């Protein structure tokens, strides 16, 4: 129950914001909002012991039971980690934002979106039903969009918001398709039930496609290569948002999804390579690009991308353990997953602190550009401390938590090379190498953050404001995070036991013992191992490379600006727009003749095409009655008239020839003994001819259209083809006599309807309803023409709408 409430509470709070905002103008709105995550965090924290004992909390509410979509909240070890992160970091970020955002901003919008996000994100991690998960997933994208565009008067904010929304929602749509495939394969949307009936899903044809689609969702959301391009642009959001959504929580939704679906997909070769490969590539690419950034926030964005890649990679490596089921050998590989979860938490602590540090610098100095910064150490000592501890942890140095998880990451990459699976023995060695290189770049940008901001010479004239230390309030949150950075280093196993190991049980539900999968975390293993040597190497080479950064910086110019992924994305979009615009304008040219050509060509192609394909044409003249000579004459007259219309030079000739056609049809009715039809036809023909003649008086003369020969030829061909098609089908239809016509029934009209003329009884009784509606049609037509004549647009009317 509490679990469900924790999803709902932020939404309720978001709905209340406008009222609170109106009535408590003097108090910063953030103080009210702060209550929500703090309360939720404390509530959830009380569950930790029970979850650690392996309990899970499930509760189902019906939403759309007819289609298997129910809101099932599910709290287990994995959900616990994420919900604690969401509410914990959420509390700190809101506390920080109270000092960061002034009351002049439209705070009610800001906090409303933030609460929406919080609720949605809790929904993602606490839902068992895939569809409900998707609902909340898209809501996080939407609220992220709104938060990035919070300062929507800035062009960059709007562009960043659009890019983020486009990429994440596209991934979401792919993920939805993947979920639907899982549903079709398994018959349920519940993750637990799918895991319980794994064989069905794994043997289905949908298994690999579903896996790839779900991964697309995860990769786009977690900014994995090559979808990472939205994240740096998302930094246009206010810094608290960047700290919260774009480093600590939302971007980890993809990681959550990977972790959550590992029991389903893990152990498959495609999964292993996709997750660990993409993760590794992202790790490298992010760290490599972070070094070249000048904007501190952009630097942190790339660093986040790289760290997300690291975690992703670890989950991929850990999934190998599922390949051959439970055994003492496979348990070793679960340590990668353990490391992933551990680093997930560590990353949130140190990256959150660093973002807040950058926010402080930006807030107090007015710029985030490292070319303008420098020498702030003495002026902002507290902020400096945050930066040093956060960066050191990120670089993987002791005595901070990042060191522990980084060591475990190295262990995992070294271990995986020993695995004789998925052709790892040949290329598995790439894992430790790339990981090590990426760590060097990580080290370098960590040094850049500290050195370029706080050391060197201060350049007061290039700063917006005179620098000074941040107010106390802004320092609280980062210091709490820094305390965690240090605290976790000192007591890592408390975290391991209470938080991480229950989550391991969720990821490896089929493994019997959680204890096996919970390694003892230690900073010093009593001897010098390869991991430690790797770390030492990172430091030495990192320092060296930093000293000569200027020398090798030009390698970043090796990739021309027009070949970056960003430029590629922009180019695809703009050229896509161009091409579609040109194509659309070419065929939608507003010319009616063209439209008719399309329609008729389609008509002929479809009908004649199918007739030929299915050999549906049949014509058997044997049963037809004899053709009389005067009928032939009539036909000849009609053909002549029809052909002559095409060559007529004057409107009046056209009208008269058209009349000839009509009257000839009337003659046919006479010949075939349908006098009432003949009469009707005669009347219609006379009236229309007269009307045409009357109104054509007001029209300009027919102009001789000049058309190129080919166009003329095409039109003739199409016309003939349409006529031929209609006739041929008609002829085939003539011979179709399997059924007795319903009109046989009407022949008894005298007894049934009391009228001897069958046509009259049909019109007036059997199908009188049609007749009535036809009268209505006439009425509308008459009235319509009246209005058309009466209601003319006045001259000089501003025709605004039809610009």
């Amino acid at each position, binding site marked *: 129950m509490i679990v469900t409430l924790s999803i709902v509470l932020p939404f309720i709070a978001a709905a209340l914001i406008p009222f609170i905002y109106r009535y408590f103008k003097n108090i910063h709105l953030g103080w009210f909002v702060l209550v929500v995550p703090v309360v939720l965090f404390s509530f959830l924290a009380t569950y930790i012991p029970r979850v650690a004992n392996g309990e899970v909390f499930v509760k189902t509410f019906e939403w759309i039971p*007819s*289609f298997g*979509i129910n809101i099932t909240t599910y709290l287990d070890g994995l959900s616990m980690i994420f919900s604690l992160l969401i509410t914990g970091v959420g509390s700190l970020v809101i506390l920080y934002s109270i000092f960061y955002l002034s009351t002049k901003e439209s705070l009610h919008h800001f906090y409303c979106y933030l609460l929406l996000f919080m609720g949605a994100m809790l929904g993602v991690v606490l839902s068992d039903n895939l*569809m409900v998960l998707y*609902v909340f997933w898209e*809501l996080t994208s*939407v609220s992220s969009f709104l938060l990035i*565009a919070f300062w*929507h*008067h800035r062009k960059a904010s*709007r562009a960043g918001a659009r890019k983020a929304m*486009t990429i994440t*929602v*596209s991934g979401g*749509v*792919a993920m939805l*398709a993947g979920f*639907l*495939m899982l549903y*079709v394969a398994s018959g349920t949307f519940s993750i637990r039930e799918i895991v319980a009936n794994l064989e069905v899903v794994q043997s289905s044809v949908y298994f690999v496609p579903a896996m790839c689609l779900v991964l697309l969702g995860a990769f786009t959301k977690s900014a994995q290569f090559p979808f990472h391009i939205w994240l740096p642009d998302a930094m246009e959001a206010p810094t608290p948002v960047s700290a919260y959504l774009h480093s600590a929580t939302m971007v980890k939704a993809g990681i959550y999804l990977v972790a959550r679906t590992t029991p389903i997909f893990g152990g498959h070769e495609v999964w292993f390579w996709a997750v660990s490969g993409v993760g590794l590539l992202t790790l490298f690419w992010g760290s490599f690009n972070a070094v070249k950034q000048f904007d501190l926030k952009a630097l942190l964005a790339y660093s986040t991308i790289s760290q997300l890649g690291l975690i992703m990679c670890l989950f991929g490596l850990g999934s190998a353990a599922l390949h051959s089921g439970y055994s003492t050998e496979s348990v070793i590989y679960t340590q990668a997953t353990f490391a992933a979860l551990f680093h997930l938490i560590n990353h949130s602590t140190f990256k959150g602190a660093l973002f807040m540090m950058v926010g402080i610098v930006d807030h107090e100095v007015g710029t985030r550009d490292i070319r303008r910064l420098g020498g702030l150490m003495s002026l902002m000592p507290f902020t400096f401390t945050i930066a040093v501890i956060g960066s050191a942890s990120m670089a993987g140095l002791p005595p901070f938590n990042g060191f522990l998880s980084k060591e475990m990451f190295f262990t995992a990459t070294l271990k995986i090379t020993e695995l004789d699976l998925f052709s790892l023995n040949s290329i598995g060695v790439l894992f430790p190498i790339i990981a090590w290189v990426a760590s060097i770049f990580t080290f370098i940008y960590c040094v850049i953050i500290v050195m370029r901001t706080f050391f060197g010479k201060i350049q007061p004239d290039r700063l917006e404001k005179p620098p000074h230390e941040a107010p106390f309030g802004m320092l609280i949150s980062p210091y709490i995070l820094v305390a965690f950075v240090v605290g976790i280093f000192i007591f890592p196993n408390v975290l391991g036991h209470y938080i991480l190991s229950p989550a391991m049980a969720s990821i490896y539900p089929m493994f019997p013992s959680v204890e096996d999968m919970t390694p003892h975390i230690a900073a010093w293993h009593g001897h010098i191992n390869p991991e430690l040597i790797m770390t030492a190497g990172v430091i030495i080479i990192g320092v060296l490379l930093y000293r000569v950064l200027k020398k090798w910086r030009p390698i970043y110019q090796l990739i021309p600006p027009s070949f970056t992924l960003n430029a590629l994305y922009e180019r695809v979009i703009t050229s896509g*727009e*161009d091409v579609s615009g040109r*194509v*659309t304008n070419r065929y939608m040219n507003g010319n*009616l003749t063209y*439209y008719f050509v*399309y*329609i008729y060509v389609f*008509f002929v192609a*479809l*009908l004649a095409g*199918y*007739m030929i394909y*299915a050999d*549906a044409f049949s014509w058997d003249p044997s049963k037809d009655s004899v053709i009389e000579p005067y009928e032939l004459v009539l036909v000849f007259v009609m053909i002549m008239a029809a052909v002559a219309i095409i060559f007529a030079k004057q409107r009046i000739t056209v009208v008269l020839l058209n009349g000839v056609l009509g009257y000839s049809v009337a003659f046919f009715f006479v010949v075939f003994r349908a006098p009432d039809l003949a009469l009707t036809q005669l009347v219609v023909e006379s009236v229309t001819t007269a009307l045409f003649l009357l109104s054509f008086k007001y029209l300009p003369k027919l102009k001789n259209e000049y058309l190129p020969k080919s166009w003329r030829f095409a039109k003739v061909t199409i016309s003939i083809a349409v006529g031929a098609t*209609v006739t041929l*089908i*008609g002829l085939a*239809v*003539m011979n179709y006599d399997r*059924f007795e*016509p*319903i009109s046989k029934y009407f022949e008894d009209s005298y007894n049934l309807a009391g009228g001897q003329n069958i046509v009259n009884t049909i019109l007036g009784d*059997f*199908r*009188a*309803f049609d007749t009535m*509606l*036809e009268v*209505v049609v006439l009425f*509308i037509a008459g*009235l*319509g023409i009246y209005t*058309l004549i009466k*209601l003319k*647009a006045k001259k000089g009317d501003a*025709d*605004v*709408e*039809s610009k």
Partner: protein
Amino acid sequence: MNNIIVLPLIVPIITATLLVFLNNNIKLQRIVSLITMIFVACISVVLLQLIQTEGILRLDFSGWMPPFGILFVADSFSVLLVLTASIVTAVCLIYAFSTIGERHEKMYFYPFVLFLIAGVNGSFLTGDIFNLFVCFEVMLLASYVLIALGGGKMQLRESIKYVLINVVASWMFLVALAYLYGTLKTLNMAHIAQRVAEAGQDPLLTVVSLTFLVVFGLKAGLLLFFWLPGSYSVPPTAVQALFAALLTKVGMYALFRTFMLMFPLQPEITHTIIGVMAGATIIAGCMGAFAGRDVRTIATYNVIISVGFILVALAVGTEDAMAGAVYYLVHDMLGKALLFLLIGTMILVTGEVVVKNMNGLIRIYPLFGWIFFIMMCALVGIPPLSGFIGKVLIGQGAIETESYVLLALAFGSSIIVMYSLLRIFLASFFGETSINEEDKMPIPRGAMASFIILAIFIIGLGVGAEGLAVYVNDAAYTLSNPSVYIDAILNTNK
């Protein structure tokens, strides 16, 4: 036999005819037309309930038993559409009250709208294919007038195209009817279905069904949509919204009836062709919307995209897909009406149609802006709004039948829908505003009310999807089991 089935058609016709004679009393016209639509909506709700308890209802006019007379048939599918159409019309009327202007009102605007909806409702309800033709004509004639009403230059230019193409389509309809009667010798839809089943849908019958495909494809804007972007851009906003919400839906409805009820036995031919056409429609629509720079173009091509989207469900043809199609049809009627009302209002208050030339609207009209945002999310299919469940079900159907290309196109199209609408939202609603608080043009209250009503429906349909599930499932069941329909018409004598 149940006489109330005819009311959704006959009540609007009667009130429309009466209102023609009261054209100078604008207030009375407004009240009567609105009440008429609310009444029809209520009747549809009653019908919907009746169908759940008594099964498919029918009304044989003048007591001539099927297959000889004309009849109206009410099943969940048709009545759901009648209900939605009536609600949408009522809302568009509310919008029109404050925006259409006295000149139009005195020129029989309300009677024409009522005639239009009579034709639409008749098309949904009829069980006789010739009567369908006649109902189409009622609807078309009214639409011809509505599109040209006002007599602006652009209006006349586009309406002549609209009229000509539709006259040709009507001619094709007649030819198709002749072929149909020439082969099957009957007009009653259930009877047609029975005879087609008896004959095993041989190639010639498939040819006949394909002629109907061309006809209804023209009406629905399935691939043959060339008339649509121009003609949907010229009439007054309220009329645009009505057209966008209703007209293509009637064509789609007819396609569903043709290929699920009457000619369902050659799916490898007919449904494959529909699938190809739907896919091509989606692509063409996406290209148009993607490149669109003004709100009108973007909106009209969005109509085309959704036509393709819904007909993917027909191409797929499973029961899940049918349920999805029903949900999506209802959603799309509401969503497209709202889209056109909103962009019409944007043009009204700014005097601009190009997206770039408007900006910062959300600062001056916050509620208006947020409703646009909700509508956008709904059309994209972002949950928990109305577009979601239909999309999910259609997707399920496509996966079950392994129609991956259609799945990719349909789902991919929602990204283009989002991109194109985001363009409007980011450029026109966000950003600095160039309008002062003082000289802003107020949005009429009636217009605002109509947006709010539609927005509530969109949210309600998404969150409360379960509420409709009974009816939708019944509709889908009947669609995918034609024998249910046939039995209700031919094998019972109520």
